């Protein structure tokens, strides 16, 4: 019943005035222009309206098949992609490495070719190896590929939802000071957010132990972010100083294994120097917002107070994630075929 109601719902294109950009894949944020990012945000705003409806279903992707192919554990990214696809009426099939032919030694490429042969329109992939989505995009010619996080490389949908969240609250990113705290070296979220925030005009300050910063970022200006965004990227290991006057503070997940690998003397020392706390946040701009890509280690990179306090927008991030992923699924799944 709800399905027929859904079909009766006014056509999404009419109600949202979405203008799909011709984009086959979402592999990274580094090939998005500022205009294209704005376009995604605009359509995500329309999608968010759909999510607020009593009946969350529109027929935009009816008859399209989306596979989520996850080689790593995930809660919010996988579920939000699934929800995004289903709200748009796509048929969404979830695959994870465990329980699939990957356990029998099937290569990523052969898995991709198999999925393509089944007539799937879009593959959403998460993989522990940087660049895995590029392999699929290069070798599969009939499907669109969306990167849902690859190794240390990129998490473009996370960055877009973070940009959406900041813009939603503060109106614009132009001239904002955004501090990203923690393990930048191992963080695909940081890599994509540095790119996205700076592209939208914000100043990005990175704070964390030097051992958890990309070596070329702390040692020289010979760095892709600095060469692209120059002085809008800064590194300051002193969080109290870095956080001064910040509009946004984002804490990154600190994996406990980093201590064993020698990157940190102890969690205790990390907490003392880089945990985002009330005292530190008091140095930021009044009303500054706190973000976290999740999953959180409360009490390590972020204090419990802050995680659930008034400045936290962590749950908004999750909600906005569904809207942004709807927009992206819609763009890549409909975009190229409309061009034909």
């Amino acid at each position, binding site marked *: 019943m709800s399905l027929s109601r859904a079909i009766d719902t006014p056509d999404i294109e009419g109600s949202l005035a979405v203008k799909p950009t011709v984009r086959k894949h979402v592999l*990274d944020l580094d090939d998005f222009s500022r205009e294209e990012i704005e376009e995604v945000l605009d359509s995500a705003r329309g999608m968010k309206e759909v999510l607020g409806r009593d009946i969350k279903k529109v027929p935009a992707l009816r008859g399209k098949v989306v596979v989520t192919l996850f080689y790593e554990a995930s809660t919010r990214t996988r579920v939000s992609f699934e929800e995004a696809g289903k709200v748009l009426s796509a048929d969404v099939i979830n695959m994870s490495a465990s329980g699939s032919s990957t356990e029998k030694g099937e290569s990523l490429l052969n898995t991709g070719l198999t999925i393509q042969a089944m007539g799937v329109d879009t593959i959403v992939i998460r993989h522990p190896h940087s660049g895995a989505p*590029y392999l699929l995009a290069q070798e599969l010619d009939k499907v669109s590929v969306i990167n849902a996080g690859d190794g240390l490389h990129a998490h473009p949908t996370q960055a877009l939802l973070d940009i959406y969240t900041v813009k939603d609250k503060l109106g614009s990113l132009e001239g904002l000071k955004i501090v990203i705290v923690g393990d930048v070296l191992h963080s695909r979220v940081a890599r994509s957010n540095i790119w996205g925030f700076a592209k939208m005009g914000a100043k990005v300050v990175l704070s964390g132990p030097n051992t958890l910063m990309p*070596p*070329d970022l702390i040692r020289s200006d010979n760095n892709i972010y600095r*060469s692209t965004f120059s002085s809008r990227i800064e590194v300051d290991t002193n969080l109290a100083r870095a956080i001064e006057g910040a509009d946004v503070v984002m804490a990154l997940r600190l994996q406990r294994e980093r201590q064993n690998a020698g990157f940190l003397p102890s969690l205790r020392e990390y907490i003392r120097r880089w945990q985002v706390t009330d005292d530190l946040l008091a140095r930021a701009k009044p009303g500054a917002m706190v973000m976290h890509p999740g999953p959180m280690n409360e009490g390590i990179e972020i204090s419990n107070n802050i995680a659930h306090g008034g400045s936290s927008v962590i749950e908004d991030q999750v909600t906005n994630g569904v809207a942004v992923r709807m927009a992206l699924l819609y763009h890549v799944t409909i975009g190229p075929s409309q061009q034909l």
Partner: protein
Amino acid sequence: MEIETLVIRHARIIDPSCDLDQVGDVLIGSGEILATGSLSLDSLPDGASVIDGTGLVVTPGFIDLHCHLREPGFEYKETIAAGSKAGAKGGFTTLCAMPNTNPPVDNAAVVEFIQQKAQQDSLVRILPIGCVTKGRKGLELSEMEELASAGVACFSDDGDPVYDGNLMKLALTYSSDLGLVISNHCQEKSLSCNGVMAEGPVATHLGLDGIPAAAEEAMIARDIALSEATGGRLHVAHLSTAGSVPLVREAKNRGLNVTAEVCPHHLTVTDQWVLGAKGAPTSAAGGLAYDTSTKVYPPLRSQMDVEALIVGLSEGVIDCIATDHAPHDLTSKQVTYQEAAFGISVLETALGSLLQLVHTGKLSMAAMVDRLTLGPTKVLGENYRDLASLQPGTTADIVIFDPDQEWMVDASEFESKGKNTPLDGTKLKGRVVATIVGGNLIYESPALKFQGVRGGA
């Protein structure tokens, strides 16, 4: 093709063994060089085949100190037969085959297998390299004297350097009366960790684990100190960082018995190529980023490293050019960058790559030829000098190349089973026209022009 006597006329003859660089003729007979210089037509024996060498360069055949022929054990990647054809097409008349085979070359039986196989299948000379340690495991020395007697050209554990400093010291000491060099792939594993490309901006951008230059330099410094302490003969395989050059320079200045090699790709290709677009400037990762054909060990590094290596090679700090030809099957490369095998198939593109340096004035033609011929024999020792000369009485191992022929690299046309090259689809200038081993013409390109036979047929 068996030819009794052969003369190459009007070619630019470069013979670094006697500083010869002039236009002239080379006469070959009975597997030897009979004469080099300006020969009058009347002095040529009847029945000699005549090659028109106008516009071509004639040099001793290239000697590759470092390549992987994969046999025995990995015949799906390369065989001695295919590798030797690739070598011949690239102008190489001698290939030193690394011992990372299965079984590894750590006893005389494997050496003899390779020698027999080479006799049957190979167009070029194949010199096996013996392991430093049993099974290349870095735990106990191999029977180095047995290997030396069986005819290995030198010792190396190849991709697995001798990590244990004391064992390396013992290897240098033990082998010092055998007259053979130890070639070490210098890489401090505790620094390179899980790295898959050069540490730097591109690695950061692509989220790939970086290999710091210090991983190479720290082990070179260790090995130089050990060579000094023991008097043992050290050869540093494939230098890739700017900082490695002064280490070797300084060791040589102190009179140490240290030599070094560099690969064509480290002289011509940078880590920018990992971003795709064949090194063309890209501010962002394009659709071709993570091109696994660029994954090689040591990794491709920055332009600054490339420039320093070219200077080191040109000045003679680096003694020779070695290919590190590392052929792989398609499956080993059609995976994520992290999973992909390290290595590039180099034999057939080496000359074309290196001539870029000559054409742009960064390296003289004479120096390039020296580093491909005489340089390697300085590492291998006196016994091999004969292979790097065009003087009368020496072995007729010769390459003839056209330095100006432009061609497009098409890996599908490689003789090597390994089609893994980042140069696929790029243009090179300079190509081998003919290769001669022991007086036999083992490779000729369509560009080779015979002028007929002296005395008529």
